[in-house]
C-alpha cells in the first residue's frame, strides 16, 4: 500500500509514495469521502511521489470537486520536479495551491 493517511483536527494529510496511479484510486477516494465537515483542509503530500499519470490528475480534480462541495481547502505539498512539471502542464497551479 503506497498511500498513508494522517488526520489531525479537521486536517487530513494524504501521503502518496512512489507511484500515484489508477491502482490506488479506491484508497484515495476512501481517504477523503468520509470527510464532510465544512472548513476541512486536505493536504496531498507528494514529496515521496516519483511518478504520476493522468488518473492521478483526475483523482486530484475529483478531490477538488469534493472540497469545493464541502467548502473546504486543499493544497498539494512538495511535488518533485518531474511531478511538478506534469501539474504545470495540467495548469493545476491555477486551480489550487501548490507548495514547493
Amino acid at each position, binding site marked *: 500500500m503506497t498511500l498513508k493517511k494522517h488526520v489531525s483536527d479537521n486536517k487530513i494529510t494524504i501521503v502518496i509514495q512512489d507511484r500515484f*496511479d*489508477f491502482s490506488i*484510486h*479506491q484508497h484515495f*477516494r476512501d481517504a477523503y469521502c468520509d470527510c464532510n465537515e465544512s472548513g476541512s483542509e486536505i493536504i496531498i503530500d507528494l514529496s515521496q511521489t516519483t511518478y*504520476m*499519470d*493522468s*488518473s492521478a*490528475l*483526475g*483523482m486530484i*480534480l*475529483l478531490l477538488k470537486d469534493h472540497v469545493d462541495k464541502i467548502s473546504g481547502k486543499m493544497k498539494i505539498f512538495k511535488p518533485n520536479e518531474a511531478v511538478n*512539471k*506534469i501539474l504545470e*502542464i*495540467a*495548469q493545476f497551479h491555477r486551480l489550487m495551491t501548490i507548495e514547493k
Partner: protein
Amino acid sequence: MLTNEKVILVIGLVSSFLLAINLAVYNTIEFSWLICFIIISCFCLLFFRLNAQKNKKPKVSLIDENESDREILQTFTQVEKAIGQQTSIIEKEISRTKVIVKDAVEGISNSFKYLQQLNLEQQGMINIVINQAHATDEDDETILETFVDDSGKTLEKFVEVIINTSKQSLETMSYTDEMVSQFDGIFKLLEQVESLSSQTNLLALNAAIEAARAGDAGRGFAVVANEVRALSVNSTELNNDIRSKIAGAQITIKKLRDSVELMASADMTSTLQAKERVSVMMQHVQKMNQESHRVVEDLAGLSPKISEAVGLAVRSLQFEDLTYQSLDSLAFNFINLHQLADEISSFNIASHEELPEQLKQLQESCNTIIEKTKSVDDRRSVSQSSMDEGDIDLF
C-alpha cells in the same frame, strides 16, 4: 700672293730702276716715257690682279659655308623627322587612349547602370517581403508563429481532455463501485429469498406428510402441498438463474473496470515532452522572426546606400569628359609642335637673301603659337575650375 703678281711686281720694280738709271745717267726723255708707261701698266696690272684676288677669296669661303649649311639642313631635317616621329606616335597614343577610356567608361557605366537596375529589383523584393511581414503582423504575427501558438493551445486542450477523461473515468469507477456494492446487496437478498424458498419447501414437505397421515380427508391438501413444493423448487431454480446472471454482470463489470482504468491512466511523459518541444519551438520561431525582421530591415536600409554609391560612381564617370579635354589639349599642342617642325623643315638656309625674312616668319609663327596656346589654356583652366565649382549643380 701668286707668282704672276710677283713677276709683274719684279717687272715694275726693274722698270722703275731702269727709269731711275736712264734719268740719272742718260737723261733721255724718249725711253723714260716708255719705261714710265711700263711701270704704270705693271702697277695697274698688279692692282687689278690684287683686286681680282680679293674678289676671288670670298668665293673660296663660300664653298665652305655651303657645306656647313648642308650640315645644318641635314640636322634640321633629322630633328624634324625625330619630332615628327615622336608627335605622330604621341598622337596615335592619344587617340588610342581616347578609345580605351571611351570603351572602359562605357563598360563601367553600363555595368553600374545594370547594378542600379538590379538594386532596384532587390529593393522591390525586399519591399514585398517587408509588406508581407507587416501584413502578417496585422493578422496576429506570422503564420509560423500562429501555427506554433495553435500547436501549444491544441496541446493544452489535449491535456485538458486527458485529465477530464481521467476524471470522468474515475467518477464512472466510483459509480461502478457503488453498483458492485448494490449487487452484493442483491446477493444477500437472494440468499434470503433462497432460505425462504427452502423453508417453503420444507413446510410443503411437512404439509404433504401431514396430509398423507390424514388419509382420504387430507388428499386434496396433499395436492396443494405438492404444488407449493414444486413452486419452491421453481423459485430456487429462478434464484440460481438470477445469481448466475448477476455473476455474469460482475464479470462484465470487471472488464469495464479494466477498460476504464486504461482510459483513466494516460502516461503524461510524452505529453510533457511534446509540450516542452512546442515551447522550445515557440521561442525558436520568435527568435527567428525577430532576426529575419531585423535582417530584412537592415537590407532595406542597405539598398538606398547601394543606390547612392552606384549613383556616385556613375557621376564620377564624368571624369571621361575631363580626360577628353586634357587629351584634346594635348592633341592641340602636338599639332602646334607639328606645325613648328614643318616650319623648321621648310627653312631654306641656302638663300641668304630670304634668311632674315624666313627668320622673321618663324618668329611670328612661334609668337602666334604661343598666343594661341595661352588663350586656349586660359579658357580650359577657366572651364575646368568652373566645372569643379559647379560640382553640385552638375552632379
